[in-house]
């Protein structure tokens, strides 16, 4: 379903990147990186509703659409989907983010995970892979 799922720390360093096909992962990383601009701008101008963490579509190219989500601790989640995929509605994307957020919260609760480290948790990976393949 999604092409790529990424977690970016509050200092904008990637903490987790998983993509469906590794061949275009680099290009997607470039795109996610440039989408951070729009996230930063949205964070700076201040969201009206603090509870709304979903940022919507940030950036689109001919091939990809980048969606963003930012937690209250400024950790950013990105989901990249294929531009030609018209089946995915906003609600489904929101659902993906919610699942990611839950998985991330669980990861944070793990006392053996040090916040800020690269995410290597198998559980988190499983959730992310589930989002990529669309069978969760």
């Amino acid at each position, binding site marked *: 379903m999604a092409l790529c799922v990424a977690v970016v720390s509050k200092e904008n*360093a990637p903490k987790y990147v998983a993509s469906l096909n590794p061949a275009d992962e680099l290009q997607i990383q470039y795109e996610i990186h440039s989408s951070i601009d729009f996230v930063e701008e949205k964070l700076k101008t201040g969201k009206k509703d603090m509870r709304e963490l979903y940022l919507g579509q940030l950036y689109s190219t001919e091939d990809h659409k980048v969606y963003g989500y930012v937690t209250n601790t400024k950790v950013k989640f990105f989901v990249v989907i294929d531009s030609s995929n018209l089946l995915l509605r906003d609600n489904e994307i929101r659902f993906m983010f919610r699942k990611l957020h839950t998985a991330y919260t669980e990861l944070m609760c793990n006392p053996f995970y040090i916040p800020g480290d690269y995410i290597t948790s198998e559980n988190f990976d499983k959730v992310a892979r589930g989002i990529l393949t669309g069978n969760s």
Partner: protein
Amino acid sequence: MVDYREFDFPAELCCSPSPLIAIAGLDTVNNAIHRSIWDAFHSPVGRESRAVLNFFHLTSEFKFPTMSEKQLMPNIPKGILKRNWIEKHIHYDPAVIVIFYDCDWDDESWNEKISECSSRVQSIRLSLEGRKSRIVVVLIQKQLPILASDDTTTTERAASLCVACNLDPKALFILPVVDNIHGYAIRLENAFYDLAQNYYQHQIRAVKLKLENLSKTSHQYLIVRYEFKIGFYNELKQDHHNAHKHYHQCYMSLLEIRTFDTNIYEVKVVAAYIVYKISRLLFSMKRARDALSQFNSHINVFKSMIGPPELMFEHYAWLSKQFSMFASLFDETTAESFTATQAMNPGFFFKEAAEYAKKRKDSAYNICQDVNVYPASNPLNEWNSIEFYGQRPWRLMKNINITDYDTIEADGILALKYYENYKVDHSKSIISLLGNAMKQFKNYKCPRMRNLLAVQMADEYYNAKDYSKALTLWSHMLWDYRDEGWKAIAHELVNKCLKCAYLTASVQNYVELNLEALKYYKNDDLQKSLANIGSIIQRQIPEPENGLDEYEKNIAVQMWQKCDAMKSKSVLEIDMSVTNSTVDTKVVLKDVSCDSIEIDVFLKANFPILVQFSKLTACVTCIDNSYDVEVCTDSSKLIYGESKTYKYTCKFVPSPNDIGKEITVNSIQLQLGNEPDFPIMLKFYSSTKKTKSFEREMNNFSLSKTSDDEFERMKQITSATLKPRSSRLGMVIKHDNPALLLEWYNVSVCLTNLEDRPVSDICLNLSLNRNNNEKVELSTEICEDPDKNTLSLPVDFKIGNMLVGDEKNQSFFIRSSSLDTRYFQLMISYTIEDNNGIKIACVKDVEIIIDVVVVFDISVTYMSSRFEPVSKIHIGESLIMVPCIKCLSPWPIFIENTSFQLAEHIAVSPGGYQSVLNEVVLESDESATEIICVTPSEHSENVLGCFTVNWKRSNMESNCKSGYSCLELPKITTEKSTFLVDMKTPAHGWLHTPMSIVYFLHNNSESLLTLNISMEANEAFMMAGHKDLNVTILPESTYKLHYNLYPLVVGVSTLPKMHISCNSESNDLKNILNDMLLRSLQTHIYIMPKHVPTSTAEIFN
């Protein structure tokens, strides 16, 4: 071969049109008045509110464009938009023709003038050949029109002129040449503007008429053309709303045209032009959102209309142009109005344009790469003279033979391909579009988007074989991505940069990048990187990077062979602040003194295989001096392998000249390889801030405290001030804290030379330091001897030289007049010679803290002569002042003397004053009382005077000199009384022995006083004297009353009470009298038992 230019937006389309006005009869070269009229039309004054007009000189040589032949029935045209039409209306087809003519109403040769003028009008009218351009005559007159007197002649003559010229009277204007030509010009402009509007409206009506006769099926081209014309006339009229409406209709009709391979290019070109006009109008009407949606639908419609596949590149060129056109329009028009946002700014369109330019390049590469010959028939020859926009030049070629139509078409396409292959610099256009996009994204605060575009730009530079530019761009981007921790991207960029560095044979960059690469590479690549660094040290050509073809490799090898740096330079210095490698250093200045400086260098290295360095040095700088300190030269201690932190310590002796200055560890240098080879010096600058290190957010939560972490946490200390040698003189400061307020407080400093050689130029410097508040300086006095002058702070006490073991004393006195604690800074400085006879300055600072306390608490009470406290005093009555001194000082205080400084009007009562406290010693918390009796002699201010105590500390060892306390006597109200009573009694009486009492009644007023005096007898006395008496007392005189009393009882007895009443009614006086009697008369007297002199003795005898 011709200079063919591909699709573009022509200048006449891009300008914003305004009504064209032709000016005739103005000789701007020779006639100053004409010149000023011309200038007035072009002056920028008040431009915003003035009509926008386009003036041009209608000279006699000017030829109006030939009119197209009028056809009764609309025919089928060969194309959509004629290329010359827009330009014609912008530059050559005026809406209004203005004929200026010098002529006054009262001109002598009026008739000649009239005929000359009319002939001019006629000739111009002829040259118009039936055009509907409005003709206007402006008479330039030297006089102001006189309205009243000459009215009839004026109207007559005006009418005759109009008739002669066959002119509408409304088209005749008068322009008086006066001072305010500007105002007249504006009025004329408005008139011209109205006429132009009228003209264009007429044109529109004419076109609309023709439009109505057209049928949608057969005249699609004409419909488009006429709609366009209406739109353009409206634009000339400055009617943007209608212009947009008609352009839009025009665009819609264009979309209805069926397209074939033959006309698709023309349709696309015309569509582009119409969309340009629409976008431009929408932006200028501040409807950016509509412009965006219009443009998007335009692109959606035409994106798929590729046309002949062999001209695919042309389609992409067209698309790229669309985007770049729209982006520039967007940029121009939104620059002021801020309608663009970060999410929707011109940058995106430039980016899209660049993307299509890339596609164009790819398709051109695919389609055209084998086209190497320009067709002999020269099919592009007449591209510049085609009649319609967007048509193919070869189809216009004369002598077209129907049979070879296909050949010609093929030739044309071939020519375009050839042109695309050889004449178009794709990279350049891609780079410039990307550059524009970057500029936009920078403006709209998208630094990362800009980075992405920069990477793409570098890609294009690389493709264009401009490796050095690509290298610069990529390496800058590498830093940005690396600093934000995007390793995958950084890894890719390192690869790309290394290729460039190899291809340009840039040794410096090549080594830097290889060092950087160590961080990303694994296994084989990493070995190769290290090996390549090794070959550079050996001055050998490194192995080529992966993914280069043979041709590139060969060129690169040649460049490496020619590389000067490899041959001539002896050391290769690498600035490690720009690279982020697996080696890092930190430095801590550990011990900094004038004898030696100790530096700790920490080095963290991580190499998969053992790497041996040759030298570790530190470069320490002072302001104008620098030291190269060798930290470690033993290469056996400089072998590094897997991640570990190493520590090195070194010491060096600074030069005495640098004392007092700041020393800084400027850089740490780690050398790889040795001198005859080409050693690489890694320079770690300590001052430049290292790139953001990504500390883990909660480092302290980490379980293992590896040496890695320790290194990260270590704080560098890179600079320190080299302090002077510290003093070794013994210094004892003696003083008895706290000081007392206003005493001369003694501080003595005892110096002993404990150095092993004589010292000279000893100086003590005493100053108040910063802890004090501001007022302290004003309330502190200082002196060497209280009898001499006071000194001002800071004070220098020169002590001179001291031999070994000498002892010297310096004392000084401080007087404080406020209670703040004082912080003094006592600095001793001197010079001493070292073994080589060089003078070394030594200093030492000591802080002296002095608290100040109060000595006495003095309070004064006032009493009447009867020892009763009083609240006010009366002139002439005696007053007793009792100052009470309470000692608060922690030390016993010796009172030297006390004194009163009384005000002039206060006299000491008879009997004088003698201090009773002289030479009394008061211990802490003890009190002493002084007493004095005074009489205020006249009414004056309530000031009584001062009471002063001179004192000093009673223990003589403290050496503190005298102080004084001074108290201003508290104020008390003084009253003048008109009547005083006084009495004279003996100190005591004897039983059964008569005694006399005298009352004195003083009248102090200036009037006669009549009083009734009565004495109230009592049982204690028998009394002789007036019992009831009326007394009259003269002004300023005294009346005496004598009484003899015979005491009847022993002990304290009540005296007979005197009552005084006044004849006058005033109650006031009565009260005063009673008050005064109570206050000043004694009420009791002590009566002793009967005095029996000697008689008892006689009895016993």
